[in-house]
Structure formats: C-alpha cells, structure tokens
C-alpha cells in the first residue's frame, strides 16, 4: 500500500502531572489528623493485626496508669498512643491525596439530565442521568454533558474529556470503529451523537475512578496478604517471648510490670512495616494515578512488577506515530539537490507530520533553507487533502507536486507526461522494505515528468534502545507487535533493540503469543485499544487499555491509561517493582531495628538482678526508665520519619536483581541494624533531662 492517507492525529503525549502530589507535605499530617483519630476505632484497627496489638497495649497501660501512676508510666502511655496514631496518620495521609482528586471527579458527576430516546428513536424524553439503564439510547448535542458511559452509535463529535484525563485538547468520538467509547461526565463540544449506555448506574467509569482514588474499594493484594501473614506470625512469636517472661523473671527475683512488658512487646513486633504497609499500597496506586493510569485492581499493580514479557505495539510505542522522510532518491538525470528542492517546495503546504519531515530533511541534509509560504508571493499552493493525496506549488511557471505514487502518476498522465519504468522499480523497492514512497514530479511548459522518490520510514523513538537494555537487565523480554511484513518488522526490531517481534500480527496471533508465554510461566503485559484487542487484554496479566479505545477494550484490561500513551507500559512496570521494593525494604528495616531495641530494653529490665548484664547496655543509656522510653519513642518516631519514603517509594533504578538486592540490603538491612542504636541514644540524651525519667 503506497497511498498517503492523513492519519488520525494522535493525541500528543501528556507529560505526567506530578504537581505537588508526588511530594510529601508535612501539612498533610495535620489535615489528616481527624481521619487518623477516626481510625482508632478498634473495629477498624483489628484489620491491621500488628497495630491492633499496639492499641490493645496502649489501652491496657492507660488503665494501669491510673492505678499505678508515675511520670514514666504516663510517658509510655502517651507514646504508645502516638505509635498507633502515627500509623493511622500514615494511612490517612496516603488516602488524603486521593481525596482531592476524587472531589474533582465528583464535580464532573454532578446531577445531569439525559435526553433519552424511545426504542423507535422517534421521541425523546428528559430523564435524570442516574435513572439510565443498560442499553438506553441518549442524544447529546454540543454543550451538553454525556450522561453515562457508552458507545456512540450514531454521529461524530468532538468531546472535551479534561474532567477525566486532565487533557484540555478535545478528542473525536464517532460511531463504529475503535473510537466509539464515551465516558459519562465528559462534554460534547460540537455536533450531535447518539450514545448507547453500557454501564449500570453507579458503576460507571467515573464512579470506579472515585472509589479507586479514594482508596475506598482498595483490597489487599496477594503479596500484601502474604506479608501480613508473616507480620502477624512475627507478632505472635514476640507475644510468646513477652508473655513467657514473667515466670522466668520471677525466678530471678525480678518483678516485671505490665507497662514494661507492653513497651517491650510494642518495640519488638514489626510496627514500622505494620504501620506503613497500607500506606505503601495506597501510594503505589496513587503514583499510577499521578501518571494518569487507573489500575482497576491492586493485584494488577503487583503483577506489573512481576512481568516477564512486554508486548509493545510498534506504532506510537517504539516508533513515532508517523513515518518520516529519510532520504531523497532521484531518477536518472536529476540531482539529489534538485529533487530535495522540489520536494521541499511541494511540501510547504503540507501540514501533516510527513510533510513537515520532508521540509526538515531537505533543510538538514541539503542545507536548503526552509521557505515560508509567505516568502513566495506569486506562488499558488496546493494543500494536501485526503482526497487528492498530494500537495504542491505552482510557481514561476512550474508546477511541482508530491504525493502518493498512484496520485502523482495520474497527475503526470493528466499533464500529458509519461512515467519511466525506473520510477516503478524505486517505488516497489521502498514498499518492499516496509517504507512508504512518495513521488515528486514537475510540470514545466506543459511537460510533466517525475523527479524522484522520497523514502518515508518509521523512526524509532529516541532512547528506546536504552530502555529495552534496562528491561533486559531487569529480566524483562520485549516483543514488538506490528502489522508490517516480516522484513520491515525485523529491520525496526533490530534498530529499536527489542528481543523479539511478531510481524503481520492479527489479534489471534497476539492472543496465541500471550498464551504461549503464559504456558511457560511468564507474566505478560500489553496495551491495546481496539475491540479486537479485548480478548488479549483480558488474557494478559497486565492489560493496559488506552482511554481513547473502545469500552470493550477498557472493560477487558485491568488498567486504563488516560493519556492513551502506550509507552507508559514501561513506567507501569517500574511502579509495580518500586511498590514491591518499598514493601520489602521497610520490612527488612523493621525487623533489623529490633536488635538495638533489645540492647536498650533487656539490660534495663534485668541488670538490677544480674549486674553483669549491664555490659549489654552498649549504648550506655541513662537509666532503666530512659532506656525503655527511648526505645518506645524511637519506635514511634521512625514511623513518622518513614512516611515520606513510604509514599514516595524507595529509589528505584533499573538494574539486575543482584545489584538491587545488594543495594537495598545495605541500606535497609544494615542501615536498619545500625540506625536505631544512634536514634535511641540521641533520644535518651534528650529525655534523661526530664525529671522522673533520667
């Protein structure tokens, strides 16, 4: 196929809106305080076994503090409650960031009325949008809000979807094809469309988005559940270690108070990760939302971290959406510069990306200064249209034309010229290599002749090779999917540095490839937008549907990219990995912390009976009370200190598993071992100044 049709203008890639939401603002701690207090309700707390144990401990010590009151006991009570509160704050802050976004979405959902069509499409009735049922037909005209999710069944319109995507440029929605889906809450800017409602009231895309960003529908992901089980069992182990202590201590003549035992228990159980675990999960989803990706389940985010194979569509993902001029091939008797000059002149009026690329190539390679249409006052420009499939200029008695081979050949014949066989060979050669040939011709003094051919070809996006190299280092295989023939596909695949390609791909081929990968135990991620992509999107472990796509595709995938930018798949994988790394690193940190806490608390408890044990007080803490209190305070403060890290995610650089393990083990393992020794000592220095403690 060598026709040049003007491709639908792809939506410009939107830079992720990082705004302030990516950063942690200490003010959020204050604004989230009411939510954090509400979460103290034991019925809510019980869902987090680690922190529930802390709350029960805090409650018990509070009661004891009334009967056996001392400065030390009250300090412990206060800090135990603060520990619980800090954990709740972490979660509340994470949730709070989504709430702002939800509020914006809610505004889009304000009660609208709908113009419902009767079944015979003859009469129309005003009904509240909320009453619309599956299959109802509604009419929407310019200036009106689309009342619900559905497919355009009649007409074409430009729609402002900024309420959802944040992108102000309107998009075209038309019946049939892959651009028929419309979302409730978006606004029709021009024309009139008939929409068939495809979701039940309350389950629309916007409803789901609100629930998602608010974290209301958040369910624990499989790995989070597994980690929770481990944390619960560690809690039980330490509970065993603590509750069995009194008989042992009694034998040694030590009377352990319940307050002290609770303090020991709280310091030992993995409160740091227990407090931050759900915040990490919410923040992970939130990082996706910031990049305008909606994950329909947390499970999908986790799966993204595990992906082994990425199926990437060639166009738009690996190559730029449009082909670009790569060389000018003159016919015999024509110089390259001559051809380049003609090509540039004839393309000045061609505003398509292909046309622009010809002007740019002539300028960069042949140093032909780009001329503007205004510079040639007596020239008549022929603009490119999809019907004529050519553009050109009439200047100084010359007529120069550039366009699809068929269109130009016909034009030459019309002008009474002939076409040499050499041209056909050139055109066929370029087509066979996967490129698109454009022919340039000139008609002077009534004689028309072809000058040569412009080779348009796919241009691989900058930086893709490095990206794929990184992917490979992370153990992810990239497969390029394209409708091109094998030869073209192979050339582009090699240029882009992907591991494999699937040429002349049909939706069935894609499906078969996914199944084959999954058979081998690999997890597959892909993007898609068409209805015929839907089965593959559903089959893939991570299926990212483009928001510009059909509702069938959006329904089938487990993520929707509001920017409709297929390259984002790579970012999604990185976010998934970062989420898991954050979880693992903070778990390691939390457990490693315990060593120092033992060295603070145990000598404080037992050195009175066995003075030799004071040798374990390697931090030389001031007194038994200050030692225990310092450990408790450190334990609480470390939660708050790590909230920003939990929300932002630990630093992630694509590298091999070995390198990542070495790095994170050093920072969070060794760091977790050492830092509390310093932290507890510093706190001890401070609180030993308090009368009744020091």
């Amino acid at each position, binding site marked *: 196929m060598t026709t040049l049709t003007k491709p639908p203008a792809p939506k410009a890639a939107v830079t992720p809106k990082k705004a302030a939401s990516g950063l942690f603002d200490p003010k959020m701690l204050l604004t989230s305080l009411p939510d954090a207090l509400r979460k103290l309700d034991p019925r809510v707390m019980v869902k987090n076994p680690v922190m529930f144990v802390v709350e029960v401990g805090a409650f018990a010590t509070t009661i004891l503090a009334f009967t056996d009151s001392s400065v030390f006991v009250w300090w412990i009570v206060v800090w135990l409650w603060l520990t619980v509160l800090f954990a709740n704050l972490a979660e509340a802050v994470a949730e709070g960031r989504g709430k702002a976004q939800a509020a914006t979405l809610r505004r889009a959902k304000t009660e609208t009325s709908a113009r419902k069509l009767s079944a015979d499409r003859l009469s129309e009735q005003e009904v509240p949008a909320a009453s619309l049922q599956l299959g109802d037909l509604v009419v929407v005209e310019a200036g009106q809000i689309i009342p619900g999710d559905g497919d355009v069944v009649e007409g074409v319109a430009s729609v402002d979807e900024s309420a959802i995507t944040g992108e102000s440029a309107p998009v075209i929605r038309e019946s049939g094809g892959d651009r028929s889906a419309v979302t409730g809450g978006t606004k029709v800017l021009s024309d009139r469309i008939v929409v068939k409602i495809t979701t039940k009231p309350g389950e629309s895309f916007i409803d789901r988005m609100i629930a998602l960003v608010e974290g209301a529908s958040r369910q624990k992901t499989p790995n989070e559940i*597994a980690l929770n089980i481990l944390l619960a069992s560690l809690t039980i182990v330490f509970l065993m270690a603590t509750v069995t202590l009194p008989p042992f201590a009694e034998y040694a003549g030590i009377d352990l108070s319940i307050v002290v035992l609770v303090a020991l228990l709280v310091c030992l159980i993995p409160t740091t990760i227990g407090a931050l675990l759900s915040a990490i999960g919410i923040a992970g989803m939130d990082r996706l939302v910031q990049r305008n990706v909606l994950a329909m389940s947390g499970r999908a985010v986790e799966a993204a971290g595990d992906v082994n194979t990425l199926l990437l569509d060639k166009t738009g993902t690996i190559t730029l959406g449009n082909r670009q001029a790569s060389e000018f091939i003159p016919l015999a008797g024509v110089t390259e510069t001559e051809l380049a000059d003609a090509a540039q002149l004839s393309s000045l009026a061609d505003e398509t990306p292909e046309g622009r690329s010809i002007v740019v190539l002539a300028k960069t390679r042949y140093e032909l200064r780009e001329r503007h249409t205004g510079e040639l006052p007596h020239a008549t420009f022929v603009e490119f249209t999809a019907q004529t499939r050519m553009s050109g200029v009439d200047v100084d008695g010359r007529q120069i034309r550039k366009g699809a081979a068929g269109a130009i050949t016909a034009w030459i014949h019309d002008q009474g010229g002939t076409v040499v066989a050499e041209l056909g060979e050139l055109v066929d050669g370029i087509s066979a290599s996967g490129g698109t040939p454009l022919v340039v011709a000139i008609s002077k003094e009534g004689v028309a002749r072809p000058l040569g051919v412009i080779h348009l070809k796919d241009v691989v996006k900058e930086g893709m090779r490095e990206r794929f190299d990184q992917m490979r280092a992370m153990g992810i295989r990239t497969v390029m999917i394209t409708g091109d023939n094998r030869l073209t596909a192979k050339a582009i695949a090699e240029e882009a540095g992907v591991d494999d390609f699937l040429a002349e791909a049909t939706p069935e081929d894609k499906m078969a490839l996914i199944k084959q990968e999954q058979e081998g135990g*690999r997890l597959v991620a892909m993007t898609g937008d068409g209805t015929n992509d839907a089965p593959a999107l559903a089959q893939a472990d991570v299926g990212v549907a483009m928001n510009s796509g059909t509702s069938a595709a959006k329904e089938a995938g487990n993520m929707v990219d509001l920017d409709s930018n297929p390259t984002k798949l790579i970012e999604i994988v990185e976010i998934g990995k970062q989420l898991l790394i954050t979880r*693992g690193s903070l778990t390691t940190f939390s457990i490693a912390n315990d060593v120092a806490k033992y060295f603070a608390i145990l000598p404080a408890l037992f050195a009175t009976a066995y003075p030799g044990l004071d040798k374990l007080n390697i931090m030389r803490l001031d007194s038994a009370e200050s030692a225990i209190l310092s450990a408790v305070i450190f334990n609480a403060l470390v939660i708050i200190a790590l909230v920003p890290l939990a929300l932002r995610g630990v630093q992630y650089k694509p590298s091999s598993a070995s390198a990542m393990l070495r790095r994170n083990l050093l920072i969070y393992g060794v760091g977790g071992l050492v830092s509390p020794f310093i932290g507890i000592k510093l706190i001890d220095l401070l609180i030993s100044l308090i009368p009744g403690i020091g």
Partner: protein
Amino acid sequence: MSDTAAGLLQVGLLVALLAAVYRPLGGYMARVYTSDKDARIERGTYKLLGVDSKADQTWATYARSVLAFSAVSLIVLYLVQRLQSHLPLSLGLPNVEQGLAFNTAASFVSNTNWQSYSPEATMGHLVQFAGLAVQNFLSAAAGITVAIALIRGFARSKTDRLGNFWVDLTRTVFRVLLPIAVLGTLVLVAMGVVQNLSGGHEVTSLVGQTQHLPGGPVASQEVIKELGTNGGGFYNANSGHPFENPNPLSNLFEIFLLLLIPVSLTRTFGLMVKDKRQGYAILGVMGTLWAAFTFAATLFENQGAGTATQAAGAAMEGKETRFGEWASALFATSTTGTSTGAVNSAHDSFTPLGGGTALFHMMLGEVSPGGTGTGLYGMLVLAVLAVFVAGLMVGRTPEYLKKKITAREMKLVSLYILSTPSLVLAGSAIAMGLAGARASIFNADSPHGFSEVLYAFTSAGNNNGSAFGGLSANTPFFNTTLGLVMLLGRFVPIVIVLALAGSFARQQPVPVNEGTLPTHKALFVAMLVGVVLIVTGLTYFPVLTLGPLAEGL
C-alpha cells in the same frame, strides 16, 4: 603438639573427610530417591506391608503415612518397655514405669533421644536393640523422607504427587542407613568400641572393690546413634563413656558420622532440583553457622571462666581428659547443630557462655546442618522466609527455586517458625511457674538453674536430646511435658513441611532470568545466615539473657 594445633588438625581432618564423601554420597542418595527400580529385599518388604511401590502419594497421604507409621512405632516402643520383664534378654530389669516409658517412646520416635533414665540400669538388651535401635533407624529415615518430599515439591510441577513414603522409608533404611551403619560398626569396633551380647563383667578394681562393667551391642548402636542424628547412648555417659567412644580418633569418626548425612543431603537436594549451586548455597549457610558456633564454643571453653577453672588451667570440669577442650567443644557444637544430642562431655559443666552457645545452637531450629532430613527441610523453610523478604527487595513477588511464594506458602512458613519457639517458651514458662517442677532444678536460684530448664525444653522442642545434666527430669511432670513437646516439635513441623511441599508441587515453574533473585550467590548465603540468626535470636534473646548471659557476663 599444642592443644590448638591438635584442635585445628581435628577440625581440618573432619572437614576434609566430609568433603571427600560429599559428592559420592550426595549423588548416591539422589539416585536412590529418583530410581524406579526396587531391590529384592525391598519388594519383599512392600509385599509384607501391602504397599504398592509404584503408587505416588499426595502430600496429605504422605503426611498420614508418616503419622500412622510413627504412631504405630510409638505404641510398639511403649509396650516393649512396659512388658520388658516378660520378654527375653531383659537382663532381669523390671518393666519401665509408664511416665518414663511414654517419654522414652516419644523421644526415640521423634528422633530426639532425650534420655530421662540411665540406660544400663533401665533397659535390657531387647529393648535396646529391638526397640530403641530400630527406632534409631526408622525415625532417622522418616526425617529424610520428609526432606525428600519437600525437594520433590520444588523439583516437580503441576502435580499433587510427592512420591511414596513407604518406598522412600524402605530405601533409606536398606540403601542408605544400613550399609553405612555396617561399615561404620566395623570401623568403630576396630577403634575399640565394645560389641557383644553379654550381661557384663564383674571386675575387681585396683582398690579391691568389685565393679560391674555392663557390655552389650554397643558399636552397632553407636553408629546409628550418630549416623541417624539420634543421640541416645547405650550408656548414661553417652559418648563420654570409654566403651562408646574410646579415643580421639573414634571421637572424630563419631562427629564425622553425625554430620555425614545432613551435609551430603544438600548435594542430593542440588542434584534433584537440577541446580547444584542451590545445594552449595544451602551447605554454605549451614557450614557458616556451624563454623561460627564451633569457633564461639571453642573460644569460650578455652578462655575458661571463674577462679576454679583459671586455677586448674583449663575448663576441664565435665570433660574427658582424652578429648580435652577442643574436641569437646567440637563435639558439642556438632551434636547441638545436628539434633543428635549425643555428648562426649557434660554440657552442664561448660562455661556459662560455652553452654549458652550449645543452647543457642539448638534454638536455631537444628539447621546447621541439622538432623537427618530435618536439617535440610528446616533450612529450606527458612530459605523460603528469607527469599520472601529479599525477593520483594528486587521488585518481584518472591520466588524460590522457580516457585512463587504466595499467601498460602507464607501461612505454612509462618506456622512453621511459630511452632517450635511456642513449644519451647510455653513449656519452659509452665515449668518455671510451677514450684513442683522447679524442685527438679539442681542449681536452684541461679541463672544456671533456669538454663537447665530452658535447655531441656529447647532440646525437646528441637528434637535434639542432649541435656544440661543438673535437671532431674525423670519426674511425671517433665516426662509428660517433655514427651509431648518432643512429639509436637517433631510432627507439627513435618505436617507443615509436607503441606508446603504439596503447595509448591502444584505450581507451574516461573522462568529464571536477570530479574530473579539469585539464591546461589554469596550475598544470599549471607542474608540467609542473618535471617536464621536474627529470627531465632530475636525470639530467644530475652531468655538467653536470663540464663547463660546472666551467668556468664
């Protein structure tokens, strides 16, 4: 030769011996458990038992088989003791009292070999070799079968079958334990260990008193005591007795025997999961821990503590002069690291920190290198735990040996790491809370007295069997509680491990690539060592503080 040179030479020789047999024995065992041919004697056994040797079992069936087999063993062993006086070769000894008989049956069936009694004064020859020695073989073999089932869980995929317990058990006995035991017996006899069926000799000592020197089939029982990481001695003095362990050479050979199978099984593991490096890594972790504890124990014993030992020039209380500090520390570390519990010296008399090292070594869960089979499966469970946390740190949901670690696996791993510490701590707490039980403590009102009780429950819960001798454990309370702790400490983890094996076997393998956490490299070995030390260390640090640390610091 100085003590240090002699000590280092022993350690070096031991490592060299193990290195020499590691590959052949590991490879041989891998073939034993993957071959589909039955020997004639095995076919006869299957016919006798009514077992279809080709039938593959699910994890639940496998577990039921282990439990049923052990239950029958328990009852038989109990009855043999209770009816001793009516059976031949009783040497005129009376029936064993019921609490002790239960404790002993539980002890030998659970591969613990805790002995609340003085064997030569309680058990006749028939109980010794038809009851106890048979269990020494069978309980050791049962441990290995469970490890093999777990290996199959990793090696197999998309199946619910883990092999056949009866076949694994029979092959372990006939192809692994018996041949080595026969060879080992000959070696030990050559080294001077007693082997007869006599009732003993009356001899007149130098000062003119008559003394009874009991004989018996000592060498044959000695071999399986070490080889099967059992530890139940023929004599009360165990491997400290000159008839069981006459000289430094036999001492070294016995240490070699108790490390032999647990060490070689890591090779079997590597071969069966088709990645030898995984076996080396596990061995690396076991070896590192063993070396560290040996170093610590040797150091503490050599330094001595207290005025008495310093005046004597060496911490020789409770040690045999023919072994000295080095060989005693080496034996103590190896016996507590392998769940054997045989002793060539009195751990009770070690320096506080030396004894504490032995105690802590058991608390690790018997994984360095652990009992026959139990050591490997214990370490693999801890490896799964380490991978779970470390795996997250490389940005993948964790996987080990190509199998995903999901919530289901973590539930089992969590139960596993919970079970033994709960038994040890709860048992000790009950004992320390009861005045009657506290009366058994010899060194009352000192941290050492607490260590005695803690040691007893740690030994029982981890199926070790060695003891801090000061505790008079032959009381109804200790016989019952320790008996229960031994049984639960053995069979709860076994059922969990088999469930875990079943869970892994069902999975589809995940392909290994650059993004996979490498579990065969030094970094992972170091991390797993850290996990073993920190997870168990954190659990037991408070009690260790009140016991050995309070005494030794």
